[in-house]
């Protein structure tokens, strides 16, 4: 806690995947998928960061990079000041061994059903991490700790749940088991990859409350990945955290949860807000984007990546990539509209170009 280093620090992270044409395709160049580009982000102790965006925007890749599951192709990721991949490769002075880092950074997957071994009882699944990381723990203590954790997440009688197989659990219960499994490692950060959206609407608040309660007890930070702004709002706002909005590999806006919801600056954040069903009876009309489908991440548009769909796009957005500009203390946005004196304001609008048709990708070079 006393250290001034952030728990996790991502600096100008880039993750590119090479996709080759196939075994017999000798001639074409391998294509590069730009999953994450130029993202810098610090995660503090007891922090909550929710990454939101559409499928394929790179939010999961960024999350996995932050917890050291995905090696970045550029930039750096460090844990308490220790570069994670240098620790892994045993390069330089390794102050924190990779094993410790790995253990401190855990993940809960989207589909708890497939992340639990169907042939193992809950007890056996949950004992495994303790067996591995706390070798001197006695079998009795191990069982006691598992049972205690099950009780903590409301799975009582714990003895009964411990003896069940995953198929004997409901979706919400499986997700709790996955959460317990991550927590048993006493991690510093848990990446929750769409852990909420697979649950029924009525169970989501309960699950998020539970995660935040455990965060308090265990001093854990959460990085949550979601496509649903209302879940992100609930989770981040209750956890006193931030929402980061991603589009095609870039972090386009980040700020305190309520600030992002009530005072969104980036046109894309506004689009996501539109896409979130409200319970008021206001007609929302046409989608406020010029194209429904997200462009191919193998060939992201030049300039601002959102310019092909952005309702506010102007000529200037094609050529130049916006940096992150400070709106408020914690609130940053990557859009020229934040600068009053940018040439954006005097350049012609692109909005006339074929609204809503994905065939109309403007010639972006």
């Amino acid at each position, binding site marked *: 806690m006393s250290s001034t280093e952030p728990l996790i620090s991502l600096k100008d992270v880039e993750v590119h995947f090479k996709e080759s044409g196939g075994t017999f395709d000798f001639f074409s160049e391998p294509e590069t998928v730009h999953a994450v580009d130029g993202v810098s982000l610090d995660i503090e102790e007891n922090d909550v960061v929710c990454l939101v965006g559409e499928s394929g925007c790179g939010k999961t890749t960024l999350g996995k990079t932050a917890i050291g599951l995905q090696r970045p192709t550029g930039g750096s990721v460090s844990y308490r000041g220790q570069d994670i991949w240098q620790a892994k490769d045993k390069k330089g002075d390794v102050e924190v061994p990779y094993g410790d880092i790995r253990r401190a950074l855990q993940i809960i997957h989207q589909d708890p059903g497939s992340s639990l071994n169907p042939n193992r009882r809950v007890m056996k699944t949950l004992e495994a991490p303790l067996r591995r990381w706390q070798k001197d723990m006695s079998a009795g203590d191990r069982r006691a700790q598992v049972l205690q954790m099950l009780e903590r997440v409301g799975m009582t009688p714990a003895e009964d749940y411990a003896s069940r197989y995953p198929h004997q659990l409901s979706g919400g219960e499986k997700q709790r088991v996955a959460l317990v499994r991550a927590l048993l490692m006493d991690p510093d950060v848990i990446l929750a990859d769409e852990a909420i959206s697979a649950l029924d609407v009525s169970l989501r608040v309960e699950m998020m409350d539970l995660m935040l309660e455990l965060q308090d007890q265990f001093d854990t930070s959460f990085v949550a990945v979601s496509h649903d702004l209302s879940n992100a709002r609930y989770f981040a706002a209750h956890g006193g955290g931030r929402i980061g909005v991603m589009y095609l590999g870039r972090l386009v806006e980040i700020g305190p949860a309520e600030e992002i919801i009530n005072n969104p600056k980036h046109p894309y954040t506004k689009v996501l807000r539109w896409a979130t*069903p409200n*319970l008021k009876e206001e007609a929302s009309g046409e989608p406020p984007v010029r194209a429904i489908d997200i462009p191919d991440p193998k060939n992201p548009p030049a300039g601002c990546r959102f310019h092909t769909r952005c309702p506010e796009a102007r000529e200037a957005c094609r050529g130049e990539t916006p940096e992150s500009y400070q709106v408020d203390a914690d609130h940053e946005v990557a859009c020229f509209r934040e600068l009053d004196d940018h040439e954006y304001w005097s350049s012609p609008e692109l909005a006339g170009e074929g609204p809503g048709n994905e065939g109309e990708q403007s010639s972006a070079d």
Partner: protein
Amino acid sequence: MSTHEPTRTNDARTHEVADPILEIRDAEVVFEMDRGVSRVLDNVSIDIERGEVLGIVGESGSGKSMLASAMLDAVVDPGILSGEITFHPPDGEPVDVLAQDQEGIRELRWEDISMVFQGAMSSFNPTMKVGGHFEETLKAHEYDVEAGMERARELLADLYLEPDRVLDSFAHELSGGMQQRALIALSLVLEPDVLVMDEPTAALDLLMQRSILALLEELKAKYDLTLVFITHDLPLIAELADRLAVMYAFELVEVADSDSILSRAVHPYTRSLLNATPNLDAPLSEMRPIEGSAPDPVNVPEGCSYHPRCPLADEECVSQDPGFRPTHTEDHLAACFHWEEASEAIPFNIEREVNDE
């Protein structure tokens, strides 16, 4: 067929619409299991009006998908479906869906009532191009292929897809949102009157879900469709749907206009469900989960099946089935003895306008 309950108020109080395209009466699905009889659809009656968008809302395991399967007599073995389902074509005699032979059912599905399921990826044959699916469907139903493919192109374009590119692709070459839209086009290629969609957008991100919903509204107007949209996500469908039918524990518990549900739902379950839904407008402290959990189909509570979780439950609710009854209006039906007290006992966490006529 059923012997389990003495009072059958549901069918007597079904709200009848002027021009029904589908009439569902006492639909019931049971599975015989080792642990007992599992009643996964319990005596559901509802009319679907020609040209409306009906949203059927329920949580996992509430029986909503079973209701969809029942509409097409597509309940999987060994489930036993009973009741009456009548389809009224735009012209001609009413069709008794459950009395059809295999050939009759085959014609009815796709040509009259078509269905789209969640997970488009698994609906397409991975080794066949998307165009092949359209041709095969047209041929199997003895439609004119050339005219049919012309229609397919138009449908794809209506859904903001590039027809030639999509027809010439394998499913895996398209994004999830494109696949789902291609599947909707496929389900409409035989010009059905009713499109039943079971969580058609659940696997997609929100922006795509909302975009598809906006497109469905256009398709519905252009092709004179009746839409039945089944989902666990009430807020998602509330804007598109004309009427909402809320299911709990394998029964309908409330049916009314969408506006009426949003502004003055009377069933305690519907009200709690609305309050439990994460959203952007309600104060954070006011979002609350519903206490307890939904019942097992083998062991549904006596009386009102929601009584163990309901703050208004009393002796009457424990012993008697409330049955459907009109509430504010003849058209706003709910199965609750205490509907008049619900709004006070379970206040909404967002103020909504009441549109009184």
